C-alpha cells in the first residue's frame, strides 16, 4: 500500500478514536465547525469551557508534534482573494448546513444519519466541481 494511504488510515483511526472518546465520555458530537462556530455566534456559550478545551487540544497537539518531527508541507495557495473567499464559504456554509467533514462526514455517516450522508455527498460533489473548474478550466488554483 502507498505509505501516504497507510498514514491516512492510521490518522483516520486516530480521528475516529477521538470522536469516540468525545461521544462516550462527554456525550458530544465531534464536529469541528459546530464546536468553534458555537463560540463565534454565542449559541454554544453554555458549554464554552469544554469547547475551548477541545480547540486548545486541536491546536496544541499538532503544534508540539511539529516541534519534535518538523512541520509537514501544506501547499496552500498564496492568492489572498482565493483564501478569503474559501474561508468565508467554509465559515458560512458549515454553519448553514450545521456541520462539516468531521460532524456530518465522520460522526453522521457512522450513525447512518441521512442528513450527514446527504451533506457529505453535496460537499464532495461541490468540492470536486470547484477543483475541476478552478484548476482545469480557469487555471486559478
Amino acid at each position, binding site marked *: 500500500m502507498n505509505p501516504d494511504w497507510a498514514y491516512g488510515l492510521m490518522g483516520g483511526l486516530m*480521528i*475516529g478514536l477521538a470522536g469516540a472518546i468525545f461521544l462516550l465520555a462527554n456525550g458530544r458530537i465531534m464536529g469541528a465547525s459546530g464546536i468553534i462556530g458555537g463560540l463565534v455566534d454565542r449559541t454554544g456559550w453554555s458549554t464554552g469551557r469544554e469547547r475551548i478545551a477541545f480547540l486548545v487540544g486541536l491546536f496544541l497537539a499538532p503544534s508540539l508534534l511539529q516541534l519534535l518531527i518538523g512541520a509537514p508541507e501544506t501547499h496552500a495557495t498564496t492568492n489572498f482573494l482565493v483564501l478569503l473567499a474559501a474561508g468565508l464559504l467554509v465559515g458560512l456554509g458549515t454553519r448553514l448546513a450545521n456541520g462539516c467533514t468531521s460532524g456530518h462526514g465522520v460522526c453522521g455517516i457512522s450513525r447512518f444519519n441521512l442528513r450527514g450522508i446527504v451533506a457529505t455527498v453535496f460537499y464532495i460533489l461541490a468540492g470536486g466541481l470547484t477543483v475541476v473548474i478552478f484548476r482545469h478550466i480557469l487555471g486559478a488554483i
Partner: protein
Amino acid sequence: MLRMIFALAAGGLFGLGLFVSGMTDTSKVQGWLDVFGNWDPTLAFVMGGAIIPMAIAWRLTPGRMPFVGGAFPPKPEPKLGSNLVLGSVMFGMGWGLAGLCPGPAIASLSYGGWPHLVFFMAMILGMFAAPTLRQRLDSVAQAS
C-alpha cells in the same frame, strides 16, 4: 473538570490524527477532489479509518449514558432542508478552493504560515456572519 480533560484529549487526538493522515496538506485534499487530474485517494482511507471507531462508539450508546454524565445526543430528524444542501454546497466550494476545512485549519495554524491564517480568519468571519445569512434565507423562504 473531568469533562474538560476528555475534551482536551479528544481535541488533541483529533489534531494528531489530522497531522498524521496528512489532511492539513491542502494538496492532498484538493488531490482527492481532483477526479479528472492526478487523483489522490488518501482522504478515502482517512474517512474510512475514522468511521470505524465512531460506528463502534455509536453502537455502545443505547441504554447507557456518557461517562461524565448527561445524555447522548438524540438522533436528528431525517429532515433535509434547503439550508443543509445550500450550506454543504458552499462549504464544498470553499473546501475545494483552498483544500482546508475547519478541523485541519485549526490543527495547522502553527505551521501553515500566513495563507492558513488568512483562511482561518475568513472562516471565523463567515461563522460570525452565518446567523444573518440564515435569517435572510428564512425570510425569503417564508415570503415565497
